[in-house]
């Protein structure tokens, strides 16, 4: 530790040998401990003990102060914990918020494991590098390495060394003092004065490695920037090809070969008991619709005799089977804009953006598209709400059903908005509320 500081003085040109320290060898730890207590009490500051194993109590004998390392580690731990919180908040809640199962973007409990881990990681680094830093390590050269007897300090020798840079150091007096402590022998440690500079090959190699390290980075950058016909490189094969079942995939695990599992026979999942026919099918309940199966409601359903099923005569509900309010209307308008307007258009004329583009292509003989029927025609306008609901659910003609995308309540909301759209082209002045009428008649 302390001996390191003498190294700074040397300058390459002046190859003058220089006394660095005086070493005393002792027979064992007890003698060394005794000598250390004496040296401590004599007021020396730049000196150290060297032993082959840790000696209990040597710190007290040398008067060494307790290390500051624990405080460094504590600061690093707090820093690690704070970093973890800040990082998770920044990534998950600020920079790239991503909704997962309706969970909050940021919450403390889920952050804790990372806080714990980063605190430990930072602490571990602080412990290692703090220890190295406080001890002045790594040290490539020390004059002690040149003392032959000193080599056995890692086997069975016990040394005490006092440096020449110590303010109380005086070669003769120090030797006399050490002699009075009954050492095995006393030795001088000389610095030969040869250059201490790190060989240039070290830096050359480092520079070479540094240049080589750029190559993979450049290769990756090139691959990312240029188009290529080659199949994708899988950097992490097992992450790209996880042994897990994805939707609609085959599986060897199950006898029927399906990856997705069917509900267990005779069970109903929570929230899946759909007995209310008016709400779930748009049909009047009871005996009226008892004969109508779910299959008969599907798009393009065929009866047993091979004839297409005509659902126009089904006992559809004519009233909404749920409470109708402003909120439901707003929801219907929003959902309509998402799911229906692309084809049917925002006003229900059957000229949404997709339809416009598809008709253009059809006109050029590049495809076949049937323009959706306008809502503002009598056959559609007269349909009971239950039938409209079934159309949204199961589709009609070319239109597919939306049951899998849109929950029942939202489908009813869309039907409600449809009724409002139809009304917008088919209203008489009598439909306008009196106060609105008055306001309109007054003009701007």
């Amino acid at each position, binding site marked *: 530790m302390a001996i390191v500081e003498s190294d700074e003085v040397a300058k390459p040109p002046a190859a003058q040998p220089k006394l660095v320290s005086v070493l005393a060898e002792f027979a064992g*730890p007890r003698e060394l401990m005794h000598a250390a207590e004496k040296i401590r009490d004599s007021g020396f500051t730049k000196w150290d003990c060297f032993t082959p194993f840790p000696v*209990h109590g040597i710190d007290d004998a040398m008067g060494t102060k307790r290390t500051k390392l*624990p405080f460094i580690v504590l600061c690093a731990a707090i820093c690690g914990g704070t970093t973890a919180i800040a990082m998770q908040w920044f990534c998950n809640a600020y920079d790239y918020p991503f909704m997962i199962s309706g969970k909050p973007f940021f919450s403390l*409990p*889920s952050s804790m*494991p990372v806080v714990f881990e980063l605190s430990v990681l930072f602490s571990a680094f602080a412990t290692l590098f703090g220890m190295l830093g406080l001890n002045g390590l790594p040290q490539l050269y020390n004059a002690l390495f040149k003392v032959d007897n000193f080599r056995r300090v890692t086997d069975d020798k016990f040394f005490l060394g006092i440096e020449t840079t110590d303010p109380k150091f005086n070669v003769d007096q120090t030797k006399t003092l050490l002699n009075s402590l009954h050492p095995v022998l006393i030795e001088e440690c000389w610095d030969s004065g040869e250059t201490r500079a790190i060989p240039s090959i070290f830096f050359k190699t480092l520079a070479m490695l540094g240049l080589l390290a750029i190559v993979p980075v450049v290769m990756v950058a090139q691959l990312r920037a240029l188009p290529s016909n080659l199949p994708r490189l899988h950097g992490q094969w097992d992450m790209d090809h996880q042994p897990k079942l994805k939707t609609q995939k085959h599986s060897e695990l199950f006898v029927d070969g399906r990856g997705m599992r069917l509900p267990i026979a005779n069970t109903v999942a929570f929230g899946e008991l759909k007995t209310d026919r008016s709400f779930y099918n748009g049909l009047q309940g009871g005996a009226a619709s008892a004969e109508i199966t779910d299959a008969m409601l599907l798009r393009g359903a065929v009866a047993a005799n091979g004839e297409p099923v005509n659902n126009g005569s089904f006992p559809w509900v004519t009233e909404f089977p749920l409470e109708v309010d402003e909120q439901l209307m707003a929801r219907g308008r929003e959902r309509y804009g998402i799911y229906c307007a692309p084809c049917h258009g925002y006003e229900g004329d059957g000229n949404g953006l997709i339809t416009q583009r598809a008709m253009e292509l059809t006109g050029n003989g590049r495809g076949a598209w049937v323009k959706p029927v306008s809502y503002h025609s009598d056959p559609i306008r007269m349909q009971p709400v239950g039938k409209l609901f079934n159309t949204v659910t199961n589709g009609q003609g070319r239109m597919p059903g939306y049951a899998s995308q849109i929950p029942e309540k939202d489908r009813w909301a869309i039907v409600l908005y449809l009724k409002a759209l139809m009304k917008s082209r088919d209203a008489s002045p009598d439909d306008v509320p009196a106060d609105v009428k008055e306001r309109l008649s007054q003009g701007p």
Partner: protein
Amino acid sequence: MAHHHPVKLDAETVGNFNDLGEAPERTALIVGVIAIAASAFLSAFSAVNWQHFLFTYLVNFCYVLTFSLGAFFFIAVQFVIRVGWSVVVRRIMEVVSLGALPCAILFLPLLAVVWSGYTGMWPWNDPKVIAENHLVERRDDWMNPTMFTLRAVFYFLVWVGMTRLIFKKSTRQDVTGDPKITNQMEGWGALCIFLFATTATFAAFDWIVSLDKVWFSTIFGVYFFAGCLVGFSSLTNLIVLILLKTGKLSPSVVTVEHRHNLSKIMFFATCFWGYNAFSQYLLYWYANIPEETGWFLIREKGGWGFLAYVLIFGHFAIPFLGMMSRAVKRNANLMIFWCCYMLVMHWLDLYWQIMPNMSPDFIPFGITEVLVLVGMVAFVFAGVMWQAGGTPLVAIKDPRLDESIAFHDI
């Protein structure tokens, strides 16, 4: 250390448990029985108060039991891994572990409650609850009065038997100084650790977890075990510090180094408790499954929610920072404070685990809690002192005693 001179201790110089006072066990026994009986009498006039009394009884029963269990486990570990430093304080831990016997007596009223068909405590004892909850129907073979009793008998056979065995062997060594006993205890210790892990886990399920009709937590046994360590380490440290303060133990035998290590165990127990309590919470919070979160839901509302925060900060964050410094761990007065503080926190932890099942909406704290706590502590103290008798405060002829006295902390 090689240069340390061996210290010879004998029964006269170290003192024994009879020196601690004039027959404290008789006074304690009287106080204990009167306090428990008085609170039972005061609560007997209404069903709500009676239920409150029984739950309070369970809280405090678990509280006094955890000291004994923690000590039991810790001593077993000392034997198995041949710990040297702890020999000078092991006798005190052994005496703390003797609480298992008085706890066995204190458990009898709880058995009576189960067999009387009382349904206000453990819902599995109520056929109506079982019939109405398909989720618990399958537990019927495991959770019924007969099985409950059989298991409890097994737990106490293990705890009382093993703590008595360890104590007997250890005190015999005081006389004979036979090092073979130390070797034998290594084997017994291994068995004790296994038996402790099994019995403590299942006891926690039986007595605390099953207060809720559907809740389950596989980590709860470890949570309970962490509580045992918190309670035991705080109590042992407190006893050692008080014996040192009053001069019953010599500071040249139990040095600052031993106190430092005991405090480190307290610090560890606090961290371990926090780690487990949080692990349990995190998984339930993440999975968000109704029958699992229900337990936490009532414990994070109203007064219980406030108590939950008291535990997060008071049982973990504050003592974690407070006991972190080496200087604090070596300061006897500060550690006396932290020991008392952690003993209170440990009680609140058990209160928070058990009580909301009786009173989900508010904290029903009252005179019953105080009376039963005083009664149980006094009763167990009497039972322990009666067993300890004239035993020396230190295992005076343990072969590792010199090593222990010379122990030096880095």
